[in-house]
Every structure is written in structure tokens, then in C-alpha cells.
């Protein structure tokens, strides 16, 4: 099922974050440099886990890979004007959330062509826009938001520090509690032995 073969007929099983599995052809998968680096030579004994991404996203990414299998070798990004109808439909079908998920997955899988097209598409969205219009397209944290985020992080760090300190204290206490009976036991035994020895020597 999943073997280190170079034939395009070989199918690989991919596992998504939901735990679902689905088939992807070897030829499509080989467009992913991550896959090439990790599995191509050694093969995989079971489904390949890409569990950071959901099934819909992975299917969308590999749909693109399957489609571009037969295209000529990739030589730098094409401009959006040069994209085929299929490519345009592929991008237009996606909503914003899916688009972002596809970019993230494509970046992780290191599919150069898809990542480039997605990035160029975003660059196009920014073209000819003034600052106010740009803010409507992209989200950039404002200074206040950054400050608030920093405060939250500081609070979290302080809380984590407190928890760590408490844990350390508790561990210390437990250690002393556990140590006490043992010490007592040692002491009592030692006393008994001394007493016995003394009595024996007296005799």
C-alpha cells in the first residue's frame, strides 16, 4: 500500500487531523518537498500523519498537486494573469478560512508552486490600496493589541512561575515527610542495636 516506490501508480494513505484517511498518488505527493525528505526513500508503513491539517484542507492541497502532475517542470511562479481557468476556479472556490489553511498546509508540505501562487494572490489583493483600504483586507495587530497581548503573555508567565514555585515547594515538603519515618526508623534501629550491643557487652 505505502512503499518507497517512484512509480506514479503507487498510492499513499494520508491521515488528517480528524483521523480520517484518504489516498493520494505518489506523483502528487512528490510535489511536496517535505514528503520527499521524510518518506520518499524510506517509505511509510501506515497512513502518513499530517494531523495538523483537516481533511478538507489536505484534500484541497492534493487536488492541486494531482492537477499539476502533468504540467511541465515548475520554473518560478506564474503571474496571476497567466493562470489557467482551472487554477482560477481552484482559488475562487475557496473561502478565506480555507485559503489560509491551504497556505499553511502548502507551506508545511513545502509545495513551492502552490505556496507561490497563494502568496502572489495575497500580494494582488494589496495592490493599489491606501492604508485604510489595506486595513480592511489584512489584519495587523495595532499597538494597543500588541500591548494587551504582551500583558497577557506576562500574566501567563507569572502564573506559570507561581505554579512552578508551588510545585517545587510541595515536592520539598513531600520529600521531608517521606524522609522523616525513614530517618526515625534508622534512628530507632540504631538505638536498638546499640542497646543490644551494650547489654551483650555487659553480659
Amino acid at each position: 500500500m505505502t512503499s518507497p516506490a517512484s512509480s506514479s501508480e503507487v498510492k499513499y494513505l494520508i491521515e488528517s487531523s480528524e483521523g480520517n484517511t484518504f489516498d493520494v498518488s505518489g506523483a502528487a505527493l512528490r510535489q511536496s518537498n517535505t514528503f520527499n525528505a521524510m518518506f520518499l526513500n524510506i517509505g511509510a508503513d501506515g497512513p502518513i500523519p499530517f494531523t495538523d491539517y483537516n481533511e478538507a484542507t489536505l484534500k484541497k492541497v492534493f487536488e492541486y498537486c494531482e492537477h499539476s502532475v502533468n504540467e511541465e517542470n515548475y520554473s518560478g511562479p506564474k503571474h496571476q494573469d497567466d493562470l489557467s481557468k482551472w487554477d482560477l476556479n481552484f482559488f475562487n472556490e475557496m473561502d478565506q478560512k480555507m485559503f489560509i489553511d491551504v497556505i499553511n498546509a502548502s507551506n508545511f508540505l513545502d509545495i513551492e508552486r502552490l505556496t507561490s501562487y497563494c502568496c502572489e494572490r495575497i500580494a494582488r489583493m494589496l495592490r493599489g490600496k491606501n492604508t485604510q483600504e489595506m486595513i480592511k483586507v489584512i489584519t495587523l495587530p495595532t499597538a494597543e493589541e500588541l500591548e494587551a497581548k504582551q500583558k497577557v503573555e506576562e500574566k501567563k508567565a507569572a502564573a506559570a512561575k507561581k505554579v512552578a514555585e508551588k510545585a517545587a515547594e510541595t515536592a520539598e515538603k513531600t520529600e521531608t515527610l517521606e524522609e522523616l519515618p525513614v530517618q526515625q526508623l534508622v534512628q530507632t534501629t540504631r538505638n536498638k542495636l546499640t542497646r543490644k550491643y551494650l547489654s551483650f557487652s555487659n553480659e
Partner: protein
Amino acid sequence: MSTLPLLKLPVLCINEILINTDIISLVSLSLISRRSKRLVRTTKTSLTGFNIKFYKDVTEVQFVTSEKKEVRSWFFKIEEKESSGGQVMEMSFKDDVIHSYHSAMDIQQSVKLGVEYLRDLFAKPILEVFLFPDDIPYPFYIGFKECNNLYMKGEKPIRNEDLKNVLENVLIKSVCIIQLPVNADFKCNNNALKFNEFSSLAKEAHWITREVFLNLKCSRIYLQHTLLDAHDFMAYFERWYYSNDKHFEVMLLETDKTFNGLNLERFNPIPWNTQLRGQHFL
């Protein structure tokens, strides 16, 4: 439509997006926040520098790129706009250009601030400055310290203080071409006249006196319509001939005076021969 969380994308993607973004959009993006400015600062662009053209009503800052694409510019225009909420200037971004509107009082300061902002953002030099000072109603000054080339062109004489200001305060690294009438009584610090190439192509350049001429420290000199004579030239030549100056290359001198008295015989001149000249011959 929801907005795109640009900074939450992977770093490589952000980088690729910014590389694909045109210069004008990058300027717009940099104005959103300090963080976005920092992002733009770290982006590799094809920008090589800026050309600045000063006209009567408009100053144009051109973005020069290594690619042979259409020129993108920022136009600073004199146009009275009602400022609201303390906003200093109004700007509009279109595909290839930025327009910003200013009053005649503050346009020069705005150009200075704008150019400083761009230089800080992209860390690129000012390549060429074109100055067309005819009918500029206010005292003119260039708000930056250096540029590679400066070209001045016009029909009317430039005000002495304006020219003095330009020549003394701007370090011109390579070429200075003055193609406008300069008043005969114009004077400036002669030490400022250090260029790689200096051309005075005006119909009248009587301001270039013997003293100014002898102070020129340029590799290539081209002067028209001066009042210099053969004795001035001989003095310049003799001083260069006995000096260690290896930078001087060529001089073309046209005067409004008769050029009698040129005597180079004592220097044993030889007929022109390209074979004997070095590879750097112009």
C-alpha cells in the same frame, strides 16, 4: 469578507507576499503600524534608488527599480486641502502612483519628510535630482544631504541664494550639470565644487571666474559661454601638469572671449595617437 491575518501566516509566506507586492503598496502597508513598517524594511525589493524632480507646482519622487518596468512615483502637489483632525497631509494611492497634497508653505518640508521616510524604509540612495526652478515662487531648498547626480535646467536665472544653497548643502557624488542662466555676481564656497563631472551649459556662465575655475576639482569639465581666456586655461593646465592629480580626464572649454595666447609648445606635445593612450581614454 473577513480580513486576512497577514502576521499569522508562516514567515516564509509573509516574505514571499511582500516580495510580490509592488513598491507603492509596500509604502502604503508600512504606514499602517510600526510592525508593518518593520516588515517592509526587511523585505527585499528590486528598488535601486530614487530620482527626484522638482517642478514649479509638483515634486515627483520616482522609484527606480532594476527591472525594466513602468516607473512608479510619488507626486507632492501644491493644492490647498482643508485639514481635518490635525491631519498633516492627504494621500491617495493608485496603481502606480501616490499623490499627496500640501500647501505652498509646507511642500518643501513635506518632500523632505517624505524622502527621509522612503530612504529610511528602503535604505536606498537618491540617484538623480532634476531641478526646474523657473517660476518656483518660494525660496528653494533641497532637504537632503547627498545625491549621485544633479541636473538643473531652466530659461530664467536661478536666484543666487537658491543655487548657493543647493551647491553648498548637497553633496553631489558624481555629475553636476547646470543648464540655466546663473547671475554673474553669483558666489559660493569654491570647495563645494567637487564633482566627478561638471558641465555648465547655460547661455551665460560668467560666474565662472578664474578663481572659481582654478578651484574646480573634477575629472571631466565642460564649460560653455564663460569669460575665461587662454591664460586661465594655461594656469589650470600647468598646475595639473606638475601635480600628482591622476583623476583629471578631459576638459572642454568654450569662452565668449577670444582665446589667444595658448602656448603648449614648452610641454613638448605629441600628435594624437589612440595607440599610446590608456584603456580609460574617453
